[in-house]
């Protein structure tokens, strides 16, 4: 899928662009190069509808001159001189940040599990066979079920970073993912569920996602009438909790937002902010982590950064530039990069972001069944619609769910057709919370990868049945 010398070729081109920077008299420069390849197939209406392949990539040039920075991106290295001129021109108009320099070359820990030869060796035909397996599994589980959408894909990418401060690093990563949207329509009554999973290594069991999608499409068919609006406990499965968590929490733990008063946790460093048995860690060194690696996207060695320990806010995330900028503006006394720079690709300069974010509990965790028993009365929510409309500044959310089960006397008694679901994430996590022991979801979002179990929140949430 990817040439053996892909990284070397990227490094050579990046170095050539760096040399052009030197020739142009650029004091500090950073060349970030990426190239991705992949195969994928689309599933629609119970069949494979399309197979595709290809790749793209390019280079991002960041230059720094006396604390002023400029950026440009390009695809064709032969146009580097124009891009360098553009970046220089922008730097001249940028504010000087005292103390801002590109990161130096520090040794980094190798992180394993980033690539899998089995993925690199996969052919488009192999992928089509996986698509066949997925469709066969749907039919086996429930003759009424149809895979109305989704797909399977594999990807391999090469990345490299070369800087004037001596960083020269690169590597290959792979990914394998499935998304499957199953619906069951019978007697004019349609239920559906979407499930997905991704991994740096070959997913051994693609049918696990299919099983979950069919299961949720089945168990939400037992409809009961919606009751009154109720403030009550809600058990969010990891699949339902993960997207909401990804919108609200990664934004709140950025050092810049905390320092500017833009986070609901601003001014609360070293204070209790969530339940005292909960901890949040951003692990940039997670083996096989979808957002991990030996270095961040500006070449700083990755680390495991504790953010909340036993409910107390003790850490935050910084990139090199944000740290220097907020110190120079007097918003914080001191700040240093936490190896938390990330990019959307070669077209973006590095910005601060989380990598593999983990929510855990020091208290005893429970199976989903036990959590339902413990809840006594309330709801189980498996997916939400509109997670992206949650407010990351305040933590407030007001979303809709159609995969919601009513719990009475510690048992599921039926499903609602639809309900509004609202609350405040920070407040809900600071109330009575119990975590599940279920396998943690690896949800990958633009804000990083979330590792969260089922979460039972007893306080501050409202269900508004349709």
């Amino acid at each position, binding site marked *: 899928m990817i040439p053996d010398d892909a990284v070397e070729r990227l490094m050579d081109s990046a170095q050539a662009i760096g040399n052009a920077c030197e020739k142009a008299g650029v004091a500090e420069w950073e060349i970030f190069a990426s190239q991705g390849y992949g195969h994928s197939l689309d599933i629609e209406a119970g069949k494979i509808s399309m197979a595709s392949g290809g790749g793209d990539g390019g280079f991002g040039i960041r230059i720094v001159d006396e604390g002023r920075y400029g950026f440009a991106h390009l695809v064709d290295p032969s146009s580097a001189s124009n891009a360098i001129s553009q970046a220089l021109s922008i730097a001249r108009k940028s504010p000087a940040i005292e103390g801002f320099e590109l990161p130096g070359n520090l040794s980094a820990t190798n992180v394993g599990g980033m690539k899998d030869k089995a993925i690199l060796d996969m052919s488009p035909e192999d992928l089509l066979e996986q698509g066949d397996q997925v469709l066969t599994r749907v039919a086996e589980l429930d003759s009424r079920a149809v895979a109305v959408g989704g797909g399977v894909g594999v990807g391999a990418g090469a990345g490299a970073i070369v800087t004037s401060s001596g960083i020269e690093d690169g590597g290959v990563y792979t990914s394998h993912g499935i998304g499957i949207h199953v619906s069951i329509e019978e007697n004019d009554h*349609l239920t559906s569920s979407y499930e997905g999973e991704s991994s740096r290594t070959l997913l051994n069991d693609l049918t696990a996602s299919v099983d979950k999608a069919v299961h949720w499409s089945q168990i939400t068919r037992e409809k009961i009438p919606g009751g009154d609006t109720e403030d009550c406990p809600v058990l969010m499965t990891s699949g339902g909790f993960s997207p909401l968590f990804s919108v609200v929490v990664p934004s709140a733990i950025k050092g810049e937002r905390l320092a500017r008063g833009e986070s609901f946790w601003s001014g609360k460093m070293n204070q209790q902010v969530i339940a005292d048995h909960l901890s949040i860690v951003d692990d940039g060194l997670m083996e096989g982590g979808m957002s991990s690696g030996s270095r961040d996207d500006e070449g700083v060695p990755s680390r495991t950064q504790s953010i909340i320990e036993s409910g107390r806010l003790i850490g935050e995330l910084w990139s090199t530039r944000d740290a220097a900028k907020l110190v120079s503006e007097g918003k914080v006394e001191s700040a240093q990069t936490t190896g938390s720079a990330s990019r959307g690709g070669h077209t973006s300069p590095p910005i601060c972001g989380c990598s593999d974010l983990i929510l855990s509990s020091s208290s005893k965790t429970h199976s989903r069944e036990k959590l339902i028993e413990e809840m006594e009365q309330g709801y189980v929510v498996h997916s939400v619609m509109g997670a992206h409309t949650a407010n990351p500044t305040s933590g407030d959310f007001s979303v809709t769910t159609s995969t919601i089960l009513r719990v009475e006397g510690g048992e599921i008694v039926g499903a609602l057709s639809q309900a509004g679901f609202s609350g405040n994430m920070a407040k809900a996590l600071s109330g009575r919370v119990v975590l599940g022991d279920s396998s943690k979801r690896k949800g990958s979002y633009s804000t990083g990868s979330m590792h969260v179990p089922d979460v039972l929140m007893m306080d501050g949430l409202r269900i508004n049945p349709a």
Partner: protein
Amino acid sequence: MVVATRQSESIHSNGRLLDEDKINRALDNASRLGAEYAEIRLVSQTTNSASLKDGKLERAIPGQEIGITMRILADGAWGVHSTSDIASISEQVEPTLRLAKAVAARRSPSQHSVGLAEVPIIEDVTHWKSLKDVRDTDLDTRIEMMLAIDDEAKDHENIVSTSTGWSDEHIHTELMTTEGMNRVWSFQRSLINGMVTARDGNDVVSYRMRHGGEGGLEVIESCDLGLMGRNARISALRLLKAERAPSGKMPLVADRDLTGVYIHEALGHPCEADLVAAGDSCLEGRLGQMIGSEICTVVDDPTMRGGYGCYPVDDEGVNTRPKNLIVNGVLTEYLNHRETAHRYDLDPNGGARAQDGLHHPLVRMSNTVIQGGTHKDLDELIEDIEFGVYACGSRGGQVDTGRGSFQFAAQEAWIIENGSLSRPVKDVSVSGMTLEILKNVDGLTRDAYLGSPGFCGKGQTVPVGDGGPLMRIREALVG
């Protein structure tokens, strides 16, 4: 491989980025090998984005990206190849054809094979020229415009931060097909946006604003940026004092932005014929049926110049035209592309859009607008509401097209009590079922036009325009 990218080989004296002779040979080869249809589409995007944080330049990103996608239809199935390496595309004909045939081989006799509706075969060049070409706009001008918002937005002690952003792009597309289509088109888009964050003790809120459309610098110049910043500040400060919204079923009045998002999510997506064909639309089989109130007429119109969702030619080379999705409550048209037009024996209506040169076209919306009604203004819409909500500004929405359920969220809102706006509330979201709530629309003001520009995600992200008049829904689920 990007390090072997050979784009510069393909820039020609006639301004074309595709080498027409070479592409024609590749397309001929595809036909010779058994393709029923093949197309090669190149998109070159010249982009500029910039942002300020608290009035200081945070970043400016100039970019030039090129992508090329080849689609081959063989034995009634698609194979696709996308790359940023233009020169390599000819080498991918055989592998892509094999992919298409492998997909076709898996189709059971009961499953539909892909066919394409016939369309006029056109060879032409269309350039929608902006009054002020985005490529001539310098960074100083962009900064000056963003500062016009920032200066007004930050002017209060409770405003803790401001962010402003800029994005413009020149999009150049070339499409060649085995049918002889050979079209070139280009156009531009410009956008400016901002966000204000306000804080009072532990209460923190934010308010976002956005203005943009098809065109160059004139799009931004047409906006009173100071007023935009001032309104954002006032709204953020008002949200600080707002209480949590009530929950339950109640009358809802939506402003233009929310009306647009509502009609985009609740109706537009289920009207996309690729979702209908996938068995994932609640509007399947409902063409010709009354699905909404008779005061509802909804148009999706990519030719509405200035709208953020405009485009001169769709990404299959089909001429664009307005599409009447609902006329007086009756579902009259799906949005389609050539594949779905063939499937349902409909006239192709130019609804194929791809995110860029590295993606294949899907059925997408453009500028989706509900037409005006008979009410004079907001006062007339709310005068007989005892208790309800007036919701303004969009924080986005989502739809489950198969089930027909949707959700959208407002930036700010007011309680309506006894025919008047009383107090502000926050965190209003609205949900419902497409086939129920469209029938509950019982009031529209006369003036309909596009609201703030938006972005629509469906695996790929495309710019869209949405809007309409102020709209009253008899009963909606709020909160």
